[in-house]
C-alpha cells in the first residue's frame, strides 16, 4: 500500500480563482493509497516546500504529487525539495492544474472535477514510479569546430583562449570562408581581408588549435561531453611537412583554365592550387578531378619542379577519429546562383552576376584587381542595375524569408560602383530597405543622397540581352506603378542566402534539427539561440540563417561561451529518463527476442547488442542493450517492442497504462 502525499497549490489566486482547491484536496485525500492531502497558497514558496518536506518525514511518504503549475516550470523545484527530505526525487510528479486547467477554464464544478481527474491520474502514475538516480557522465574538454569561416575562426579562438583544445575542420583548402571573398564591409567600408587575415594567422599559430583543412565530418557518434567524431582528411597529394609553400608548382601547372571557386568563376586557377594568396595554410592541394596526371596518367610537372619533393600522388584520404566534448557547427551559407532565375536568363547572360561575384570584381585581390569590369568583354559598365530580393521573400522560389544582408550589401555595391566609376549610373530595384543596425540606415541613405544611387521601388520582371546591352524591365511602384525599362551594361542580383548544399546530410549525421530551408534550427528562437536540440552541439553564424558579420561573430562568441561553460565542469548529470531492456529469470533471461526493430528506429543509435550467456559461457541469445549515455529518452523503441521487453524509466508501460485507467475511471 502506497503512502502518497498530495499537495494542492492555489498559486495565489491563479488556481483557486477557478478551481475549488479545498475540494480537490479533500477528494484526493480519499483516494486509495493517499496518506496525506492538503492545499496551500504557494506551494513553491519556502513555507510551501517546508510542508512537503515535513510531511514526507512525518507520514513516511513514498510518493508525492504536487498539483500546481506546469512541470515544465517547477518540477525541478519540487523534486529538489523531495530529495532534501530524503525522498528519491523521481518519486515526485506534478499535476498541471494551472496552465492546463485553471487558466483555460472558467470557474465551475466541471473545472474542479477536471482538476480532480488530473490529480487522480498523477496519483496513479506515482504509485508505479521507481526511485531513479541521475546519470553522471564525464566531459572530454576538447571542442570540434566545423567550418573555418569567420564564425568558426571566432569560435575556435574564443574556446582556445579560454584554455581548451580545439580542432577546427574546414572543407576547403584554406580557412577564411565567404568573408575572405568580400571586398569591403558595410557600413564602415573597411577592407574585409585586412581585418580577417590576422585572425586566420592567429588560428594557424594558436597552440590550442589543431587546424584540419580539406577535411569534412564523416560521422558523429556519442553525446554531450563524449562525442566521437570521425573526420575525413581528403588527400591533398602534398606532404605538408615538406612543402614550404613556395608556390612554384602552381605557376608551372599546365592546367590553368579551371574556374576559380574563390573568384566565383570570374577567374581561373591551376589544378594544383592555393585558393588565394593569403590562404591559411598557404600550401597547395591537387584538385584530382582536374589534374592531368589523375585524369590521364601523364604530366607530373609539379613533382618535377618541387624543390623539396613534397608531391605525393599516391596519398589517400585519411580517416581521423577524435574524442570531443562539444561541437560548434559553423558551416556557413551559400547564395542562389544566376541559373536559378528563369526570368533573368537562367544564367545564360554573362553580365548578369550575383552579389558575391560583384564582391570579387570590386575586390583589390579579385580577377580585375578591383576595377569594375563586366565579365563578357571586360568593359567598364556605364550603367548598372542592382536587383534586391532576388530570390528572397519569394515563396514561388521556395524562399519566403528575408535574407537580411542584401539591402546592406547592395547599397555597398552601388556605392563602391559609384566610387570606382564616377560617371556611371546605378539603379537599385528594391521592395523595402531593411537597414536595421548600428549605422546601417545612415549608410543606405548615404548611397542615395551622397552617391546618387537611383533607388526604384519595384521588382524586376525580366532581364534580356539586346545588342550587347541588358534590357531590364522593372517598375516604379511609387510612381503609380509606372513600367520602367532600362538599358544597362551589367545586372547584379542580390541573390538569396541559402543553406549550403549537403547541410541536410550533415544535420542528419549530427542528429540536429533543421528547418524547411535546410538551415540548422536553434533549440529556442529567443532563449537558446546558439544551442541545438542535441545537447553539446552549438551553432555559430549563417548556417542557422543568413547573418551579417557582426551578428555572426557575436553568435560565434556565444557558442564559444556555451562550450566554455560546459568545459568548466568535470562531470555532467543527466535526467535518468532512459530506456531499459528487461531481465527475467532463466530460461528466458530477457523477453527480448533480438529482432532489433528498436535499434533501427532509435534516433540516437543508442541500442546495441548484448550476448546473454549461461554459466558455462555459451551464448544463449542476443538481445538489445541500451547505452544509457546515448539514450535521450524519447521512448520510440518502447512503442515498437512487440514483447514489451524494453521500457522507459520515468514513462514506463505501467505508469502510462495506469494513467489512462485512472483518467477515465472516476
Amino acid at each position, binding site marked *: 500500500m502506497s503512502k502518497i502525499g498530495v499537495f494542492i497549490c492555489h498559486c495565489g489566486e491563479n488556481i483557486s480563482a477557478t478551481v475549488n482547491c479545498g475540494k480537490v484536496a479533500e477528494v484526493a485525500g480519499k483516494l486509495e493509497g493517499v496518506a496525506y492531502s492538503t492545499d496551500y497558497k504557494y506551494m513553491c514558496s519556502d513555507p510551501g516546500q517546508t510542508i512537503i518536506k515535513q510531511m514526507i518525514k512525518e507520514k513516511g511518504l513514498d510518493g508525492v504529487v504536487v498539483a500546481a503549475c*506546469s*512541470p*515544465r*516550470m517547477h518540477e525541478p523545484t519540487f523534486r529538489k525539495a523531495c530529495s532534501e527530505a530524503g525522498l528519491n526525487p523521481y518519486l515526485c510528479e506534478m499535476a*498541471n492544474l*494551472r*496552465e*492546463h*486547467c485553471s*487558466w*483555460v*477554464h*472558467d470557474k*465551475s464544478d*466541471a*473545472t474542479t*472535477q*477536471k482538476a480532480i*481527474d*488530473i490529480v487522480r*491520474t498523477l496519483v496513479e502514475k506515482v504509485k508505479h514510479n521507481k526511485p531513479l538516480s541521475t546519470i553522471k557522465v564525464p566531459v572530454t574538454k576538447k571542442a570540434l569546430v566545423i567550418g573555418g569561416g569567420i564564425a568558426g575562426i571566432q569560435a575556435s579562438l574564443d574556446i582556445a583562449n579560454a584554455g581548451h583544445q580545439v580542432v577546427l575542420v574546414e572543407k576547403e583548402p584554406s580557412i577564411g570562408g565567404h568573408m575572405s571573398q568580400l571586398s569591403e564591409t558595410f557600413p564602415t567600408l573597411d577592407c574585409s581581408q585586412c581585418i580577417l587575415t590576422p585572425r586566420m594567422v592567429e588560428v594557424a599559430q594558436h597552440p590550442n588549435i589543431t587546424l584540419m583543412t580539406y577535411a569534412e565530418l564523416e560521422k558523429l557518434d556519442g553525446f554531450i561531453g563524449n562525442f566521437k567524431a570521425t573526420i575525413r582528411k581528403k588527400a591533398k597529394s602534398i606532404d605538408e611537412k615538406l612543402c614550404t609553400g613556395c608556390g612554384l608548382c602552381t605557376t608551372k601547372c599546365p592546367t590553368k583554365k579551371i574556374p576559380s571557386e574563390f573568384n566565383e568563376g570570374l577567374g581561373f586557377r591551376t589544378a594544383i592550387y592555393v585558393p588565394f594568396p593569403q590562404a591559411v595554410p598557404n600550401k597547395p592541394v591537387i584538385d584530382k578531378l582536374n589534374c592531368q596526371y589523375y585524369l590521364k596518367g601523364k604530366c607530373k610537372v609539379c613533382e618535377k619542379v618541387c624543390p623539396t619533393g613534397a608531391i605525393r600522388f599516391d596519398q589517400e584520404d585519411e580517416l581521423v577519429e577524435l574524442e570531443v566534448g562539444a561541437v560548434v557547427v559553423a558551416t556557413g551559407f551559400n547564395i542562389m546562383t544566376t541559373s536559378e532565375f528563369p526570368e533573368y536568363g537562367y544564367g545564360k547572360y554573362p553580365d548578369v552576376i550575383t552579389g558575391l561575384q560583384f564582391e570579387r570584381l570590386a575586390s583589390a585581390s579579385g580577377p580585375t584587381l578591383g576595377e569594375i569590369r563586366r565579365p563578357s568583354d571586360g568593359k567598364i559598365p556605364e550603367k548598372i542595375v542592382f536587383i534586391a530580393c532576388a530570390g528572397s521573400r519569394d515563396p514561388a522560389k521556395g524562399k519566403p524569408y528575408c535574407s537580411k544582408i542584401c539591402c546592406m550589401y547592395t547599397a555597398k555595391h552601388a556605392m563602391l560602383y559609384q566610387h570606382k566609376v564616377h560617371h556611371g549610373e546605378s539603379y537599385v530595384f528594391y521592395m523595402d530597405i531593411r537597414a536595421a543596425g548600428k549605422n546601417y540606415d545612415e549608410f543606405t541613405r548615404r548611397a542615395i543622397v551622397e552617391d546618387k544611387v537611383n533607388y526604384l521601388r519595384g521588382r524586376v520582371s525580366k532581364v534580356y540581352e539586346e545588342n550587347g546591352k541588358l534590357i531590364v524591365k522593372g517598375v516604379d511602384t511609387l510612381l503609380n506603378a509606372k513600367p520602367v525599362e532600362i538599358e544597362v551594361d551589367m545586372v547584379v542580383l542580390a541573390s538569396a542566402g541559402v543553406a549550403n548544399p549537403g547541410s541536410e546530410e550533415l544535420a542528419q549525421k549530427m*542528429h*540536429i*534539427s*533543421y*528547418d*524547411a530551408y535546410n538551415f540548422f*534550427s536553434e533549440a529556442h528562437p529567443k532563449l537558446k539561440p546558439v544551442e541545438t*536540440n*542535441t545537447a553539446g552541439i552549438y551553432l555559430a553564424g549563417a548556417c542557422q540563417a543568413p547573418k551579417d558579420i557582426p551578428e555572426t561573430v557575436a553568435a560565434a562568441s556565444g557558442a564559444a561561451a556555451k562550450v566554455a561553460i560546459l568545459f568548466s565542469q568535470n562531470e555532467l548529470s543527466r535526467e535518468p*529518463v532512459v530506456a531499459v531492456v528487461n531481465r527475467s529469470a532463466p530460461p528466458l533471461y530477457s523477453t527480448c527476442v533480438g529482432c532489433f526493430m528498436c535499434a533501427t*528506429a532509435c*534516433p*540516437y543509435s543508442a541500442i546495441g547488442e548484448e550476448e546473454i550467456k549461461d554459466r558455462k559461457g555459451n551464448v544463449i541469445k542476443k538481445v538489445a542493450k541500451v547505452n544509457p549515455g546515448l539514450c*535521450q*529518452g*524519447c*521512448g*520510440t523503441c*518502447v*512503442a*515498437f517492442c512487440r514483447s514489451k521487453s524494453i521500457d*522507459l524509466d*520515468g*514513462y514506463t*508501460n505501467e505508469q*502510462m*497504462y495506469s*494513467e*489512462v*485507467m485512472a*483518467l*477515465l*475511471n472516476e
Partner: protein
Amino acid sequence: MTEFEPKIVAFVCNWCTYAGADLTGTSRIKYAQNVKIIRFPCTGRIDFMLLLKAFGEGADGIIVSGCHPNDCHYTSGNFHARRRWIMFRGLLDLLGIDVRRIQYSWVSAAEGAKWADVVNTTVTAIRELGPYTDYAKVANYLEKEANV
C-alpha cells in the same frame, strides 16, 4: 436535457504540444474542460494499445498530438509515430472503430491558440457524434460477465 459531455483523452508529447498547451494557459485562452492530457516524452513513445485501452475504458474521443514534422525534439520520433498512425488508422477503419473519434494533430510549443482550437473542434465533433455506445456495448460486455 443536459448536453452530452464527451470524455476525451489527449496523448501529447512533452516538448511541443504539452508546452503548446502550457502556452494556451499562459495566454489565458479558454477551451472546453472535456479534454485531459497525458504527458509522453515523445509521440514516438505512444503505444497504439493505449489508444485502444482508452476507448475500452469509456473514452468518447482521443487526441494525439506532437511536434510538427522536422521539429521533433528527438529528431524523428514523430516521423515514426506518423507511420504507426497511418497503419493504425487504416486498421481501425477496417474494423469499424470510428476513426473520426481520434484527432491527430501537430501543435508546436508556440501554437497555444491552435491547441485551444484543436480541443474545441474535437469536443464539438465528438459531441456531434455522441457517446461511443458501439464500443461501450462491447466493453460493458466484459463488466456484465464479471458481474455474473
